[in-house]
């Protein structure tokens, strides 16, 4: 099964070469064998998964196909409300989050035939880029145990990379899909703000939260996006725009597309192996016919400051009860961030929201009149050791968190689609990654570029050394 991708598995099931029960059992066996050390799952629902798989198998035998994901085993970050399963959101409280309706994105995936394996580990309240969790265990990087899986969708990154699930949902408020994708060597897409409904998902910051897919390949991510994208009356911020056929668009050549490489901010202070890997990836895109040029982007520090103020103020409001009543339950760095948010003046928060509108408008106008997409690093260095990121005072930890998410957070502020794609390995065997950023609602172009690169480079064919 280590050769499977979501797309190949779905095709095998459709062709009758594999059954939904066989696919689900293969994932469950792998979880049983590997997850004791990876810590990717918080709640495994083996019985529920097999019950669903049997029903899907009966449907398949009768020629009833529920959708493009018929029989495909997936898993979901533990902040998606799924009927019958707890949502701890990475906290000490098993049932921390509850919503009246099931998570729309999960509901759509299940409606398209997916099998729910369970709920995935994450950093507490989705606050933190490393994937450590004092309550549920630190998620281990499948490529190198003892190193971060990235966060906050840490379990999603590790589960997909290790082949425990064929795809996953993550959420991204400051990089929480792309950071674990970069650390774990998989593909993760933060769609445009409003492209995917956030209904039924624990909010961290309603202005910055994005729900998106994580999988082994760009095609897999495109398939998942095609199912979850689109308007949802349950989420007032969801766009009325129809979803495109993202997977069908992947085959279009990228020759002539203009790809900008930021000359300011994004390449400053990078690990040398990471910089070399990203620049090689850009050269591959150029070799495929993309018109690559260096561009100066509007200062990302401005939108980063704005995004920080908004996210911290909103998260403190959302989780104020937990902070007030059970602060001792929170990890020190999470508690410190919430305590800071409580103190942000309303004036600063409101001005940040107003500034965000202006900065987004200016960025879109200035940058996308010159290029069709941007290519930049996604993580500043390969996944660091867990012991290193947790060492020192709370202030030390918080400072590292800011540094590690400095390349992803601007795109949450701007609301633009950004996909993280693997682009090689460090000398120590840890994944390198880069992100492709596009115009609002132009997921088609970022996925096309990502797919073209991936097929040319071939890094997606490598698997972590877990099977010996």
């Amino acid at each position, binding site marked *: 099964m280590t050769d499977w991708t979501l797309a190949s598995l779905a095709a095998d099931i459709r062709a009758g070469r594999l059954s939904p029960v066989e696919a689900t059992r293969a994932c469950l066996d792998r979880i049983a064998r590997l997850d004791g050390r990876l810590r990717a799952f918080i709640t495994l629902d083996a019985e529920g998964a097999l019950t669903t798989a049997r029903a899907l198998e009966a449907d398949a035998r009768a020629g009833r196909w529920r959708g493009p994901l018929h029989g495909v085993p997936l898993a979901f970050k533990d902040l998606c409300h799924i009927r019958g399963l707890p949502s701890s959101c990475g906290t000490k409280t098993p049932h921390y989050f509850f919503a009246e309706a099931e998570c729309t994105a999960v509901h759509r995936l299940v409606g398209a035939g997916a099998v729910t394996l369970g709920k995935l580990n994450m950093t507490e309240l989705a606050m933190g880029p490393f994937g450590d969790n004092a309550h549920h265990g630190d998620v281990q990087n499948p490529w190198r145990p003892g190193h971060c899986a990235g966060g906050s969708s840490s379990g999603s990154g590790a589960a997909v990379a290790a082949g425990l699930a064929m795809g996953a949902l993550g959420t991204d408020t400051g990089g929480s899909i792309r950071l674990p994708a970069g650390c774990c060597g998989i593909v993760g897409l933060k769609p445009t703000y409003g492209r995917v409904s956030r209904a039924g998902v624990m909010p961290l910051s309603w202005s910055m939260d994005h729900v998106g897919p994580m999988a082994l390949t760009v095609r897999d991510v495109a398939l998942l996006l095609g199912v979850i994208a689109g308007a949802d009356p349950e989420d007032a911020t969801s766009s*009325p*725009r*129809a979803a*495109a056929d993202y997977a069908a668009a992947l085959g279009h050549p990228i020759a002539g597309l203009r790809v900008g490489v930021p000359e300011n901010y994004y390449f400053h202070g990078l690990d040398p192996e990471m910089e070399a890997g990203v620049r090689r990836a850009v050269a591959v895109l150029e070799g495929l016919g993309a018109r690559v040029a260096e561009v100066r982007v509007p200062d990302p520090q401005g939108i980063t400051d704005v995004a*920080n103020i908004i996210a911290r103020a909103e998260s403190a409001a959302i989780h104020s009860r937990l902070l007030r009543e059970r602060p001792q339950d929170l990890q020190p760095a999470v508690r410190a961030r919430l*305590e800071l948010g409580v103190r942000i003046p309303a004036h600063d928060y409101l001005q940040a*929201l107003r500034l965000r509108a202006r900065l987004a408008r200016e960025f879109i106008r200035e940058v996308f009149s010159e290029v069709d997409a941007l290519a930049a690093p996604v993580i500043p260095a390969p996944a660091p050791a867990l012991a290193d990121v947790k060492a020192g005072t709370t202030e030390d930890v918080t400072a590292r968190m800011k540094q590690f998410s400095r390349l992803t957070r601007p795109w949450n502020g701007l609301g633009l689609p950004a996909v993280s794609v693997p682009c090689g390995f460090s000398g120590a065997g840890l994944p390198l990654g880069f992100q492709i950023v596009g115009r609002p609602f132009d997921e088609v172009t970022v996925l096309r570029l990502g797919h073209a690169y991936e097929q040319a480079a071939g890094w997606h064919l490598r698997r972590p050394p877990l099977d010996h």
Partner: protein
Amino acid sequence: MTPTDAREIDLASMAAAIERAEGDLALAEEPARFLAALEAGAPADAPGPGPGAPSEAAAS
């Protein structure tokens, strides 16, 4: 540095960032214009409103 010191420094830094940038904000600027900026910035060939979208429902 104590946790309180760190928090005060962070708050001051955030306030300074707002102060630097807010001076030339237009009076008409408001948060909802962020969503409008995204919609306006979409490529011309991006799919439009889908079935059941609010604008279509209102028109029917």
